[in-house]
């Protein structure tokens, strides 16, 4: 497995790996992928893809309203809040791109 691939996977998971870890995990990933390769030996040309292992379908929600959490409870485990205790506070992310919202909508108003 190429070193860039290991770095890329680490970046996607937002983890930083030391030089040594890059080597270790690279080797481990390599062996996992190699193991999965075995499946490729089977001829699956006529087999429908099976995304789910359990045979359940159409699980719709029909429970009536439930109350949302009180804000205190919702924010209880947040590492940091805004001074008024209304928002989760995170390190500033402007400049990065939210894949869904572009610059990201403005909260509050």
């Amino acid at each position, binding site marked *: 497995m190429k070193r860039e691939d290991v770095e*890329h996977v680490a*970046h*996607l998971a*937002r983890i930083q790996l030391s030089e040594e870890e890059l080597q270790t995990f690279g080797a481990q990933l390599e062996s996992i992928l190699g193991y999965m390769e075995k499946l490729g030996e089977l001829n699956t040309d006529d087999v429908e893809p099976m*995304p*789910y292992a*359990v045979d*359940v*379908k*159409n*699980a*719709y*929600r*029909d*429970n*009536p*309203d*439930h109350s*949302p*959490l009180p*804000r205190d409870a*919702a*924010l209880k485990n947040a590492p*940091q809040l*805004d001074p008024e205790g*209304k*928002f*989760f*506070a*995170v*390190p*500033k*992310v*402007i*400049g*990065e*791109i*939210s*894949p*869904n*919202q*572009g*610059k*990201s*909508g*403005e*909260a*509050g*108003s």
Partner: protein
Amino acid sequence: MSQQYEPVIGLEVHLELHLPQKMFCSCPAEFGGEPNTQVCPVCLGLPGSLPVVNREGVLATIRAGLSLGCEIATFTKFDRKNYYYPDIPKGYQISQYDLPLCRKGSLTIDVNGKSKVVGITRVHLEEDTGKLAHVDDRNESWVDLNRAGIALVEIVTEPDMHSAEEAVAYLKELKAILSYLNISDCNMEEGSLRCEPNISVRPVGTSTLGTKTEIKNLNSFKVVLQSVQHEIHRQSAALSRGEEVAQETRLWDEAGQKTVAMRGKETAQDYRYFPEPDIPPLEISKEEIETARASLPTPPKERRKALVEKGIPDYNAEIIVRSQGYADYFEACLSTYNEPHKVSNLLIGGFLQELNQRGISEEDIPIPPEHTATYCRLSEEGGIGKAARKQVLAALFDTGKDPESLVKELGVSQVEDQDEIGKMVDQVIAENEAIASQVRGGKTSAIMALVGQTMKLSKGRANPQIVQEILKKKLEG
């Protein structure tokens, strides 16, 4: 001669569904609200919580797909789109990847009198993200997750459009169709309808697609038009200078009237989609699809056609059918006063102005349609003097009273009485003897000056036709 470039444009539209509850939990899905008060373990992405599908969201998406002529999947599933960003607490968005609910539709637009079909690649269902506020002086971003988990429909076109005007025509038609379904507020300013055009240009006569850019955060038709026009121009200019167009996301800079590259490095997107293991797949039955189809309203295009067949000008019809509520209101007016053309003139003119000035939605008009129709009849048939029409209309909006009583209260009824007008005409002739003798001498066109004077004397209340008739009688014999 310099190289000509042809733009190729596709559009991605996100539509926030207006349902009572979120898509995968029962939190209320209202717009706004105090930050982080419409959240629960599911939409906060807390460990151990399980998303469960809201049937209404699926039905709304099927209706959107059907109204765009799509095929509806009989088997569909949700997938995880993985990425880290603070607006998405789970670290993934529940979306649809290879088996969207709807695909292969189309929408016909009219641009400069020409019809054109825009292909719809897919319509799928996903969840909305939270909102971030960036707090510069604290070097922090604040996260509100009220919006996280609200049902969101994504509508993707083929790259079938070739001008900014076509892109806007598509967007307008799409918005009209969607707003008839009553599944969303379809409000671009508030972000319940979001549009992301992707644009590339290529030398005219070639068929390979150029490198495309995407523009985000466009919140009005006008900005879509301006930004797409600018982007076409920018890319064509770059190519003709021998430069390359970078694949990137851009924003509209309102002050500079240009698109600008988004700050920050853009790494290649790698969402590692895989089937959402927490949500079993859905089978959509033929009956469900047919029930949804039967629930579709008459689309705006057909209503527009029907109005034009009633003798209403295209332009009037187009404005009236923009909103279903307004089209219904128009029809309701006709049952009191069946003069389609005249009522349509009122509804796209003074009446619409009053609505706009007062910030009243076309879907939510407080005046009973009978009153509006009566007002229109009185104006047309002379029950209200021309000069007083605006005043009566404003009073109609202020009081909601019926126009006949308003005309009496305001003392602005049109003067039709022959004797009364006759007296005024005598006075005008006496005061304008020079003009009067010109008319007597055969210069009939001069009579209009006297009509004007009489109208002025009556403070606009005299019926101008009667004024003219009496003047003629008195001067021309």
